[in-house]
């Protein structure tokens, strides 16, 4: 009979190898629904983002819509190290979700007007349009009148583009988060040099926060995806928004958040006003939204949508990885009532 002996070192190696194989099997099983390769790509990019330079976000104090909004935007643009948009074709995308009396659910025209003036007179963009693809209504014209946008746009001599009915451009989706390989997008956005997302500071009953990222739902054509574009919610709101952020075809982007009067509670429509007196700006949409959450006294680490995208390396939400400029966050912070769980 042969006396089979195994050394302690070999035993340790065997145990280590077995552990690695078992761990790999667990990870493979856990990631089966999305695919290990995708999961690994997202995870590695998320880890790499930890070593990337901090994202810069700027805050400005603006006590009311009659105050110097233009001056505040000028300071934000500089403090946030905004992209150079000279001679660029720019799409400004406010949030015009709906008009409901005494519910400040949309981006006020004073903020958009000041931004348009700044872009044309100081940044000297080549062209600028205001664009929106409303979700609850098929036609935006009544909304434009009710919200004051029609008069503002006429005064500014800036065109409005209804993204719900624009020509369709198929955009390849590179992220793999949603179960779609392409998305039809409005040509105005797909062919622009830059997109400026101008959301309202507010809570949201599905995503907890409605910021610069959720505002991107409006760039998807309703005529294709329906009203309120629920087909994309079915993909998983987090997954679909990650897809939009990752695959956005505009080379340059910036977010400017209207937090002069925000909305708390049952956003995006039925919440109540909070005078936050703030504008927030930055090029990293995730960092801007995480800062907005903190501005509302909410924890971005408790918001799945932000946590998932940060994990996947689509931006920063860790306060240590966000460089704040301008007015202090603590000065502007107001505790918002969170959205009810739906």
């Amino acid at each position, binding site marked *: 009979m042969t006396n089979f002996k195994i050394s302690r070192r070999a035993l340790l190696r065997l145990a280590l190898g077995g552990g690695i194989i078992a761990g790999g099997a667990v990870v493979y099983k856990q990631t089966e629904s999305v695919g290990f390769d995708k999961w690994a790509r997202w995870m590695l990019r998320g880890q790499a983002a930890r070593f990337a330079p901090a994202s810069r976000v700027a805050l400005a104090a603006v006590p009311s819509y009659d105050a110097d909004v233009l001056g505040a935007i000028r300071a934000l643009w500089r403090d946030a190290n905004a992209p150079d948009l000279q001679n660029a074709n720019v799409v400004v995308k406010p949030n015009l979700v709906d008009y*409901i009396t005494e519910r400040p659910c949309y981006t006020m025209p004073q903020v958009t007007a000041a931004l348009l003036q700044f872009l044309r007179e100081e940044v000297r963009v080549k062209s600028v349009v205001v664009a929106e693809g409303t979700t*609850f*209504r*098929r*036609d935006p*014209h*009544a909304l434009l*009148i*009710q919200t004051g946008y029609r008069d503002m746009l006429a005064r500014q001599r800036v065109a409005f583009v*209804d993204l719900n*009915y624009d*020509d*369709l451009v*198929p955009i390849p989706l590179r992220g793999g988060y949603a179960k779609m390989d392409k998305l*039809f997008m409005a040509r105005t956005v797909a062919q622009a040099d830059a997109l400026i997302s101008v959301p309202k500071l507010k809570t949201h*009953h599905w995503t907890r926060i409605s910021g610069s990222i959720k505002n991107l739902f409006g760039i998807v054509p309703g*005529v*294709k*995806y*329906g*009203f*309120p574009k*629920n*087909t994309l919610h*079915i993909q998983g709101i987090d997954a679909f928004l990650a897809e939009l952020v990752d695959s956005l075809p505009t080379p340059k982007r910036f977010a400017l958040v209207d937090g002069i009067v925000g909305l708390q*509670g*049952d956003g995006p*429509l*039925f919440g109540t006003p909070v005078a936050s007196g703030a504008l927030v700006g930055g090029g990293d949409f995730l960092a801007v939204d995480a800062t907005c959450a903190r501005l509302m006294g909410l924890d971005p680490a408790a918001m799945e949508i932000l946590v998932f995208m940060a994990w996947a390396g689509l931006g920063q939400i860790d306060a240590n990885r966000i460089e704040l400029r301008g007015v202090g966050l603590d000065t502007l912070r107001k505790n918002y009532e969170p959205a*009810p769980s*739906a």
Partner: protein
Amino acid sequence: MSFVEPTAAVMIALEQDAFAVDLVRRARAFLKQLQRADGGWGIAAPDDESGWMTAWAVWALAQSDDDVAQRGVQWLLNHSGLRVTDPKEIERVKQVLKIDATITGWPWLPGDAAWIFPTALALLALNAMRIHEHPREQEAIQYLLDRAIPTGGWNIGNPFMVTGDLPPTVENTALALLALDAYAIENEITRRARAWLAQENFTPTAFEWAWRAWYWTRSKSQVSDLKASEEYANRALVALKELQRADGSFDGNPFTTAIAAMTLDV
């Protein structure tokens, strides 16, 4: 880019007009060319997925191209909105949205929930194909009645969201009423919806007036108060014509212009 919806709507509007024979012929050719292998239609040539536009195309081709339209009918009957079956989820949806999630209609796209507009449109398309007793139609009628806003009219889908009542919207209310009229459904829900549509406390845009004009000009045979119906129709038509742009369009939007065109042949 040419789209199915305005093409089909204009075709329905102009089908009987002698001067538009050539236009209608080209519109027919466009729609037939865009029919997909599965029998449905996307929204325009680049769209490679059949969806809610199928109902528009079936309605537009119902009189002229029965075989093509029949394939579209099969696509419609093979697709429905999501139906909730889990009792806990049914109860949750009841609380959050105030709807009966066991009843469904038609979605915008396969895999989605049902919504008012595509459901009402599918009913009108099936009605144009002289199909009236299919169980899907009966369920779709129940769907529309279940989703009505208690004070009158329809929003895009549910009448309530989390903490607030949703307001009626003109396109969903007008189209749902047209569909229910087509199936001779008359009850307190349709009367309240009609009362809402007759109000004039809205922001006057071409879109708002076009949908009202379409409904009131088509509803004459359904409404008991014919005189009032004609008065609403005339008011809407006058207001609509005042909003027509110099280029002939309404708001420069082919979709709104197509709905306005629905009223031009009366």
